[in-house]
């Protein structure tokens, strides 16, 4: 199964879906600052890995599949849930990378320039997440 760029989904994404992601992402980022200020960085830091946009994104995916099937005169409920579940599985694998990101930033942020640590940790996120995806592919 080859990973590839396919802009079809990107082109079909409606403007309000981008707005939703922008709103939820911006709100969680702003709220994290408020929570950290009120309860300290220990609690605030938890929300750096809060699944803020996942419910909206997964629900939109289910809705798109239902609409696609409905156009063909079929019931897309099962397919919609399957697509959302598939996305959730991918996200679960992505969180492995998120753990790696967090560990690296925690261990290295005091020792090296911040931009190098954040950039390197982001690369490490991708490598860890993609490796987890590849491993589950081979094990299936």
């Amino acid at each position, binding site marked *: *199964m080859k*990973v590839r760029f396919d802009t079809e989904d990107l082109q079909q994404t409606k403007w309000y879906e981008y707005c939703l992601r922008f709103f939820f992402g911006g709100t969680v980022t702003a709220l994290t600052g408020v929570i950290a200020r009120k309860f300290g960085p220990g609690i605030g830091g938890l929300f750096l890995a809060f699944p803020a946009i996942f419910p909206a994104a997964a629900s939109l995916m289910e809705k798109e599949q239902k609409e696609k099937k409905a156009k063909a005169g079929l019931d897309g409920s099962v397919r919609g849930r399957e697509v959302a*579940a598939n996305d959730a599985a991918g996200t*679960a*694998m992505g969180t492995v990378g998120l753990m790696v990101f967090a560990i690296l930033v925690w261990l290295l*942020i005091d020792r090296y320039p*911040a931009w190098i640590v954040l950039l390197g940790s982001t690369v490490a996120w991708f490598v860890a997440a993609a490796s987890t995806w590849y491993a589950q592919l081979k094990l299936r």
Partner: protein
Amino acid sequence: MTELLLRFLIGGSVVTSFAALGSSLKPRRFAGLFGAAPSVALATLSMTIVKNGRQYAGVESRSMIAGAIAFFLYASCVCWILLRFKFSTLVVTASAMTVWFGVALGLWFVVLK
């Protein structure tokens, strides 16, 4: 207020960018990785480092590990329930937030406090 607005704008931009990148990838399960991209973390930590310093950001990152473990269990629960029951995705993803909160706060209380 200015800081909050800046956080909102930067956070929203970074999250949307990662989401757009994820949308342009196939297969779908691989694209799902971007649902757990460190977009909020990058936006927040960048601003935190400027405002509060690197040590503060380090403490937040340590807690983020617990949040990421909770996120893993949350996403796994959502996947499991969606494949076995007929609840709508919105109901499942919203209800499963209790898993994230329980695990994240529990880990913080037991391990990190």
